[in-house]
């Protein structure tokens, strides 16, 4: 992973972060968020501060409440060398889904490339560029990403480490009043054998629409830590699908975003791969009339471990959130879901919904669910529900009585279980693509 350079930056200035997970008994420090560390054009300086943040935090211990159900040793970052930062290159792999999109971005172990299929990539309309470049031209960009800190999702050491070591920081910016319904496809092919930390920042300006799909794939063991941040301006719409494929790596995902006045976010997350996954999703409904629809589908097989955390923050009045996370666990798989709906003081007339359904498909499977409501306002309705169970024997009987073999009947029921989520994918072609992928996974 020798020194390549990005946009004229010397790799010699990579800040030192101790990636070693040697557990220390240091007291828990509540790491300040971005508010006092605003993104600035001097990114190297910023990375050094991020590294200091990381070093000031202890590594989690298995006894910490947040890590009691997920062994932090699954996510030790020191066992792999830090992947070098990447440069732009032009070569791009073909993917059957490419034709669905206006623009395709590929990130891999060597660099990154953009294919502008519809001639829309333009700094004045849809700007896809490294963070350094965007910050040089528009130093105010960073202000869209402040305030993404809540006590329920404290900044973790892994997260700051990843930010300090970011392999590729990429901005997708949509100018006001633009519609990109065919949107952008970001494909991340994570390399094997290293710590790889992409950072994607999405800003949709007011009245704009963006469809964005981010998919991650890869083989072999690796440490993958992704930071995906977004901010949707007034009356804007972001339709985001995040698809996790891949085999063998420990993957951590930190998704933080804000939805402003009358704006909406439609997120579909599919967790279909990797050996160990810890995903964090936090959405702030920051302006009156903001909406978020959050869907999650996950299939946990073999000895995989999936830990998903979600936070719906209602910080403004008249906001709506609707979260449905569905998980099917098979073999010796293990799933942990922890979700919170938080209504801050003054967030009146809101509606918060959260549901987590778990299906256990084999005797060794295990699912933990910790839904939660934290309400500091009145005049609102917040609801959550959680279920754990097996495939309904009546449904199975119904199908078998009609001559469908058991294995196929089970698959059909599972497809139906996930349909509530897959049907939320906004792009018809992609929706079909995701259905087919799920079918294949369920047949395997």
């Amino acid at each position, binding site marked *: 992973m020798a020194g390549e350079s990005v946009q004229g930056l010397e790799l010699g200035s990579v800040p030192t972060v101790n990636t070693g997970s040697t557990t220390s008994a240091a007291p828990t420090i509540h790491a300040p968020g971005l508010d006092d560390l605003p993104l600035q054009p001097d990114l190297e300086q910023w990375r050094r501060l991020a590294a200091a943040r990381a070093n000031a935090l202890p590594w989690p211990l298995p006894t910490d*409440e947040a890590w009691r159900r997920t062994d932090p040793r699954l996510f030790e970052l020191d066992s792999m060398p830090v992947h070098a930062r990447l440069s732009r290159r032009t070569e791009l792999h073909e993917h059957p889904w490419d034709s669905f999109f206006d623009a395709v971005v590929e990130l891999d172990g060597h660099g990154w490339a953009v294919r502008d299929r519809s001639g829309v990539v333009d700094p004045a309309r849809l700007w896809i560029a490294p963070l350094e470049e965007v910050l040089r031209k528009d130093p105010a960009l960073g202000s869209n990403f402040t305030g993404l800190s809540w006590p329920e999702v404290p900044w973790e050491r892994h997260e700051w480490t990843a930010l300090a070591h970011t392999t590729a920081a990429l901005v997708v910016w949509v100018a006001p009043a633009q519609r990109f319904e065919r949107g952008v496809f970001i494909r991340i092919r994570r390399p094997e054998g290293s710590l790889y930390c992409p950072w994607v920042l999405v800003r949709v300006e007011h009245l704009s629409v963006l469809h964005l799909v981010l998919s991650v794939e890869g083989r072999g063991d690796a440490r993958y830590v992704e930071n995906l941040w977004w901010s949707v301006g007034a009356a804007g719409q972001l339709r985001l699908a995040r698809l996790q494929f891949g085999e063998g790596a420990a993957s951590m995902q930190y998704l933080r975003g804000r939805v402003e006045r009358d704006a909406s976010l439609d997120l579909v997350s599919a967790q279909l791969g990797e050996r160990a996954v810890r995903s964090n999703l936090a959405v702030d409904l920051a302006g009156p009339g903001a909406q978020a629809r959050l869907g999650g589908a996950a299939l946990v097989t073999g000895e995989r471990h999936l830990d998903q955390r979600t936070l719906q923050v209602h910080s403004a009045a008249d906001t709506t959130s609707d979260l449905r996370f569905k998980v099917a666990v098979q073999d010796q798989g293990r799933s942990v879901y922890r979700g919170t709906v938080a209504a801050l003081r003054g967030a009146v007339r809101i509606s918060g919904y959260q549901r987590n359904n778990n299906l256990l498909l084999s005797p060794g*499977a*295990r699912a933990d*669910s*910790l839904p939660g*409501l934290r*309400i500091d306002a009145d005049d*609102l309705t917040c609801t959550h529900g959680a*279920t754990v*169970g097996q495939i309904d024997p009546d449904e199975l009987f119904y199908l078998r009585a009609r001559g469908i073999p058991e294995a196929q009947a089970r698959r059909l029921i599972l497809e139906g279980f996930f349909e509530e989520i897959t049907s939320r994918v906004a792009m018809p072609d992609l929706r079909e693509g995701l259905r087919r992928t799920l079918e294949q996974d369920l047949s395997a």
Partner: protein
Amino acid sequence: MADLPLDNKLLQEYAHGFVTPVEEELVPPGLNEDIVRTISRKKGEPDWLLEFRLKALRAWQRKTEPHWAAVDYPPIDYQSIRYYAAPRRLSAGEGMDPEILRTFERLGIPLHEQQRLQGVAIDAVFDSVSVATTHQKILEEHGIIFCSFSEAVRRVPELVRQYLGSVVPPGDNFFAALNSAVFSDGSFCYVPPGVRCPLELSTYFRINAAGIGQFERTLVIADRDSYVSYLEGCTAPIRDENQLHAAVVELVALEGATIKYSTVQNWYPGDEQGRGGIYNFVTKRGECRGARSRISWTQVEVGSAITWKYPSCVLRGDDSVGEFYSVAFTNKRMQADTGTKMIHIGRRTRSTIVSKGISAGESRNTYRSLVKFLPGADYARNHSQCDSLLVGNRCTANTFPVIESENPTAILEHEATTSRISEEQLFYLQSRGLDPEAARSLIVNGFCREVFQQLPMEFAVEAVKLLEIKMEGSIG
């Protein structure tokens, strides 16, 4: 309660806030081995019980106070608390102090035979000791042992020794360890095989002395195919200081037995500024040890400055059933962190959780629960429902359930909602001539109905009245 002058706001809000002037025998404040030995000696306990206490004390000394609950309170100085207080006349063997009799009469708990409520046998606990147990004769005819804990240690030591600490071990948690080291009295109940207890059994806890903590211990054993319904009530005087109440309740249901445990908790909750009130840190746990056994917890919480309480069921026997029905009302600066645990071990075990939280004023009301299916809990089932009602805009309502399933055949459903009293319902009732307070009270009663239905009749009436009084003035 109806006899009290209604114009007296303070009495209306907390009618049980008076102090009884009795001479009490106190031990010096502080907690160490000597104090534990003193308590044990005063009660003339056998060596094995002293050993139990000392073991618990050592466990307590190793433990740190838990702070994960969503409650805030200043640090408690455990060395400034008196761990034993007993009315002097009683401990000198001179019979009951008439003042104490009057206290319980004022509380509506008649200890004289002629005044006793039909069908309820009462064990009354005043500070650290049990002062009276009624209806002993009728119970003895059925072979039921219902007496104070100290008496049980003398009368049926082998039973106490067999079951004490078998559900809540002495080192279970910080407060349980504290209780196990210094527990002074409480109630003991044993229902022999096949007996359906003809009376409701009841314990009434009263904290009177200042600067003491109350650490009572309740042990209920229902032998094969028996039935017992148990009630618990609690009050304390109005004081500016906080007082600690750390009880342990253990229930054991053997094969086919049913235990119904109901609590109306009306400790002094503190004033508007959050001064005073009881810290209620209680460990309550029942074990369905035999097949087809059943344990049902019903609680109505309207008082104590801080509540930290999770009545739980360990469903060990196949086909056993656990139930938890709760109404938790918080007002002023009260903080409640309460809920339940259902541990499914046996096959086809079932549990139901119905929790209703009502938050008013600047209070904080948290529901916290654990439902766990172990790998052997084939075809186990749980249904949980927890609803929160918000009254006022400065209160907090939290819901933190934990669900763990290690068995694919187990089925669990959990639902929770938080909402404000519906304007439509209020309008409907007001347009029919009800004043706003009465309308709110009616809606709240309807909200809690599912839980009140589970209470024995006398308690249900009491609970409805209590909630009405507590609601008054809470609507801003």
